[in-house]
């Protein structure tokens, strides 16, 4: 996950820089492609983060005998 997050961060920065004119790669004839590349890097990964955090959340709660919550009955 660390590698993935690093890739997304660096990739987003590079494509954002290109979108802002670095390298003069973006023209009116290909702006759509570059925008799709930009959003392709910076948006779908949210779903991966969501699934990962949901799994971690579930594992944490399973690991706790009380399901992650301390209740009066579990103390007794």
């Amino acid at each position, binding site marked *: *996950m*660390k590698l993935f*997050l*690093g890739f*997304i*961060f660096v990739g*987003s*920065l590079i494509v*954002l820089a290109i979108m802002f004119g670095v390298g003069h790669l973006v023209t*009116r*004839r*290909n*702006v*759509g*492609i570059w*925008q*799709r590349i930009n*959003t392709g890097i*910076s*948006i*779908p*990964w*949210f*779903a991966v*983060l*969501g*699934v990962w*955090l*949901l799994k*971690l*959340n579930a594992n*944490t709660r399973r*690991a706790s005998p009380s399901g992650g919550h301390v209740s009066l009955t579990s103390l007794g």
Partner: protein
Amino acid sequence: MIRKLLLAALIAVPICYYFALIVGAATYPGYSHVTRYASELGAADAPYPALFNVPIVIGGVAAVLTSVGVVAALRDLSGRWLWAILAGIALACWGASMVLGGMFPMPDERHVGFGLGLAGPLVPLFALLENYRMRKE
């Protein structure tokens, strides 16, 4: 349960965006993904601007809401708040820019969301920094 819902909203963000992009383009005769901005699908001269703008606003609201769940979940990884809160703030800013982008279609100057969308790339950075301090279970 609430946290689960908030984190599930994070999964909904790309779904909303790509729904807007695909359905908006499919209903826009002559639209080119190569030469045109995605936002043009929500502009006034688009055949069905609401098909693009409404899902974008929903995705933005989902991003703002899920930022709370992301802060809580990332905080649980490391036991520390700093990077988790910063990741949540960056995500909420990005979500707010999506909401503004959908509410104020091109060429309205508010469409760019006052640059708040530039906070987006900071979310993986802050999540990564939080991840580095993950608790050893």
